[in-house]
């Protein structure tokens, strides 16, 4: 057991270091601004006094390293400073939106994961038949389409023409859970379509890879029935790649969610990020980027840890 624990700790430590490096990149990238933040906020016409006052207020006179440490220690407890544009606390704006985004991603994942894995296994078992070819072309098309294309197609057919679902996913506090699911169905479905295609292809590749290994052939040759080959021989080794596929695609969801939120005007963190970028509201941009990157790293970490935990070779050391 000690082996697994040390492996996992190593991986966690590595993830933490990566996150630290990324926080450095995110913070110091803003320092690269031509001029500085005060200049960017006030524009070219600002007087020296105004600039100096704003620099004082924002603490820009301290050395960058000190400000980085202050920002990081604030970020750890969820305090990202104040928005330049509205003056509100960034955390109070973002927290609720982040929960909304997580809800949307979870909604999509709950549908997509079982669906994609089942389909992926079926397609892998039927490989090189017509169904496999058709699935290949369909998933490739889905992967190649920009998220906003799928989103607008769904709006056109399911919302405008069939009038089954609302095109705009606005939320209000007094909605019942069912109403919420109905309201957010189209954005979730868009994400499901994209992620399912990715996941199916990866599951198919993982399973085919596995079925080519010698021990599966051995099991077949000794006359084991096909279902038993799958359940007893293939599945225990398939968990690692499948967990990997799931976590990687959930990480992919994190990026896809930005475009989908904009298409459906969904009040999530991706929407705030895009708004903040066009208004050049750096504290909000930094906070959103850090949150996205942290989620991304966390999911990749989960993939690796899951792969370690389910690896039969590690669980039963010689």
């Amino acid at each position: 057991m000690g082996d697994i624990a040390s492996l996992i700790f190593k991986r966690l430590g590595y993830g933490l270091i990566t996150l630290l490096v990324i926080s450095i990149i995110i913070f110091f990238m803003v320092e690269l601004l031509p001029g500085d933040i005060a200049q960017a906020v006030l524009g070219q016409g600002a007087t020296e006094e105004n600039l100096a006052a704003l620099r004082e207020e924002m603490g820009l006179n301290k050395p960058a390293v000190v400000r980085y440490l202050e920002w990081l220690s604030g970020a750890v407890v969820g305090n990202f400073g104040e928005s330049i544009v509205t003056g509100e606390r960034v955390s109070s704006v973002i927290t609720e939106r982040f929960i909304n985004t997580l809800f949307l991603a979870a909604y999509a994942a709950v549908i997509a994961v079982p669906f994609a894995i089942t389909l992926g296994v079926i397609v892998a078992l039927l490989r090189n038949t017509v169904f496999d070819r058709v699935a290949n072309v369909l998933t490739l098309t889905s992967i190649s389409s920009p998220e906003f294309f799928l989103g607008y197609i769904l709006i056109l057919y399911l919302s405008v023409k069939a009038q089954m679902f609302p095109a705009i996913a606005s939320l209000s506090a007094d909605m019942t859970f069912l109403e919420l699911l109905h309201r957010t169905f189209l954005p979730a479905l868009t994400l499901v379509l994209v992620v399912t295609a990715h996941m199916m292809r990866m599951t198919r590749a993982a399973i085919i890879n596995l079925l080519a290994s010698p021990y599966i052939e051995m099991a077949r040759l000794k006359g084991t029935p096909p279902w038993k080959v799958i359940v007893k021989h293939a599945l225990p080794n398939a968990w690692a790649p499948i967990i990997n596929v799931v976590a990687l695609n959930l990480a992919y969801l994190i990026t896809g969610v930005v475009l989908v939120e904009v298409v459906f005007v969904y009040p999530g963190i991706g929407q705030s990020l895009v708004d903040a970028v066009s208004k050049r509201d750096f504290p909000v941009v930094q906070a959103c980027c850090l949150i996205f990157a942290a989620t991304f790293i966390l999911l990749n970490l989960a993939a690796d840890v899951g792969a370690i935990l389910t690896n039969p070779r590690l669980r039963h050391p010689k």
Partner: protein
Amino acid sequence: MSIFVITYFGLLIGVSCLAAYYEKRSAFLMLFSLTLVSFVLGIVGGTGALRSVAIGAGMLAFAAGVSFAFREFLVAITPPKLAKEIKTAPLTASFGMFVIFTYAIAGIFAPWIAPYGESEVISSAFAPADANMLLGADQLGRDMFSRIIYGARNTVGLALLATMAAFFMGATAGLLAAVKGGWFDQFMGRFADVIMSIPSLIFALLMLSIFGPDITVIIIAVAIIYAPRVFRLTRAVAGNVVVMDYIEAAKLRGEKDGYLIRKEILPNSTAPLVAEFGLEFCFVFLLVAGLSFLGLGIQPPTADWGSMVRENATLISFGEITPLIPAAAIALLTVAVNFVVDWMLFRSSGLKEQ
């Protein structure tokens, strides 16, 4: 039961019987499952659903015909050695080549093909299609069709430039890392790991917020984001070549790193690198389209597919499909490149999945 429905099922069942009789197993399976699906579709969606299935099948058949003809055309005009290779291309790959060819023509000859200029206002906003304007006007009264043609030049051109920048950076770093090894290799590897652990769209947004939406910034941002992927692949491919005896021999002859890379390593790793270029292009193209959809890509009035979708999105709520055409153009090119890359990977690596 209209005549259409009867012909529809009659044709499907007739052709699947024929397929079964001539023992074309896969064709039979596909046709018969289509028949079964059609029963359900017909009950749920009525004649309309069946009609769209028929239209879809017709378009597929048309695309297959075009790709077949294009493949024969390529075989006829290329020298014998290349023609032999092209003959083995599946229909999907030749469809991809056909689409890429069309886009290239549209992009290069845009000013001659497009009836109007890309920022020329010729009618009222959202004017419907007429004899003058194939696809109607956009939100400012500019000709949609002309803007789509110009978009092939602007959007694809930008994505191509950005991909080349990323590829140049990544491939150079990868080759150098493979040849030099040691701390340089280690450092570049770790650096690539860090960049790759930031989601690409997020990283691009961060850079654009700082340096402003500008074409040079987009190209540099994309290059930084995608270079690590190219680096990894190049490093892996070149790493396999570097350990060969002929490299050892060249090193003993006293050849410099530059010679090793150009004369020994590159010729032996072109195939995977070319395929990787196609794949990278797809990622970059989708990222650039996403950025311009968010209003952070190529700035107006330059025609650009991503922003065209966003600007005309209101039309969708009136049941119009015009705003979807630029989006479909993006999807079609990405699919086409993917098809060609699939074939090239299959051919070059002898990667025959069981």
